[in-house]
């Protein structure tokens, strides 16, 4: 490692794409012998919150399905608690899942709807799920969030949504697809491009 005189590193390690061949190690899903680290079902017995399914498609700049991506989600439980080891009641909930896209660029998670969590300066953030997206052709993780359509009132006060141009906020809000089911498509590029964050 290159370091300065005091041993401080030269800088952070740059990102590189996951490429197309990650599945056997990161999302084996029973198709490969390697053991899965985190799958697409986050629900555990006793977890606080309403069980929901969130599914969708990942599309490129020509509207073509991206069938070799994977998504990571990170979220609080239904009581707005991140699983950082503190607080009773959600000890078995990891708040983290992985799902790869398959045919037609589809992915799906089974999880619980998160509760609101604290925002900066005493504000409250509307319920949301953080998404990290990785794929061939994506040189660095793409970060976006899923918000839920029934929380329109909370969206008006959400400190992160407030930073998103009004005409693009809709790309961050899932659609209802039946009881306990939501759809959320991610468009990587083009006119209907999903909002991505730098944080």
């Amino acid at each position: 490692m290159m370091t300065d005189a005091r041993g401080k590193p030269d800088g952070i390690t740059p990102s590189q794409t996951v490429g197309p061949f990650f599945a056997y190690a990161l999302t084996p899903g029973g198709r490969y012998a390697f053991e899965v680290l985190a799958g697409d079902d986050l629900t555990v017995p006793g977890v606080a919150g309403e069980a929901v399914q969130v599914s969708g498609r990942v599309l490129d700049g020509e509207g073509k399905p991206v069938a070799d991506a994977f998504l990571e989600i990170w979220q609080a439980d239904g009581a707005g608690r991140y699983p950082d080891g503190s607080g009773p009641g959600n000890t078995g909930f990891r708040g983290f899942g992985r799902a790869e896209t398959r045919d037609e660029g589809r992915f799906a998670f089974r999880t619980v709807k998160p509760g609101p969590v604290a925002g900066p300066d005493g504000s409250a953030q509307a319920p949301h799920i953080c998404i990290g997206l990785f794929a061939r052709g994506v040189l660095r993780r793409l970060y976006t969030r899923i918000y839920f359509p029934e929380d329109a009132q909370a969206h008006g006060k959400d400190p992160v949504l407030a930073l998103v141009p009004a005409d693009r906020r809709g790309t961050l809000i899932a659609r209802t697809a039946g009881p306990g089911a939501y759809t959320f498509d991610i468009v990587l590029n083009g006119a209907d491009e999903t909002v991505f964050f730098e944080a």
Partner: protein
Amino acid sequence: MALIYPVRSLAAHPPYLAPDYVSTRLRSPSRPLVIVPHTLSELSGPAFGHDAVRENHMDLTVQHAGEPLGERIIVTGRVTDEDGRPIPDTLIEIWQANAAGRYVHVSDQHPAPLDPNFTGAGRCVTGPDGSYRFVTIKPGAYPWRNHHNAWRPAHIHLSLFGPSFLTRLVTQMYFPGDPLLAIDPIYQSIPDERARQRLISSFDIDTTMPEWALGYRFDIVLRGRNETPWEDPHDD
């Protein structure tokens, strides 16, 4: 706006659009990213520890009945933050092609042999000083279809979590002296020469084990919190 992790460090990363890497053209945002504060959602993160790792996960040469073909190597280093502080107890996942440059993945159909004794996937957790160690075989270079006669330099993919959602990193480790690095659009997508150099491991005779395996060192630097003051190394 509360930015707990310095964002200037992110300049080390490649841009999303790197036209010479053709797949980025339709898979990169064309609109500016929206800069957001670092809230609880970004400052927390999943914790995977020793429970996620089996005994043979850090040695990719002992996961099958026989030994894989190829040049046995040891890859070791330390994971620190950008202030040089060790990051202990963090999960590292790796995956790679075999010695012939072929991945186990069903979509890799290029005409090189699979090795029944090599999957190419591993995991380990960093020690108290941020150190990690894998035993594997040196991956081969392989062709890809980005442009005419395109070949990826030999590399090992690495995935790290670090302490929060913001420290997540997926990258690739390369080998010193590889002539393909100069013409690889993925490696060359990193604008800064010094940042690119940080992805090249160094041959290390002290890590090398006599009559057993060559050793390579690869240190990994994740983002670090602004608020942590630099401490004198003698201050323990």
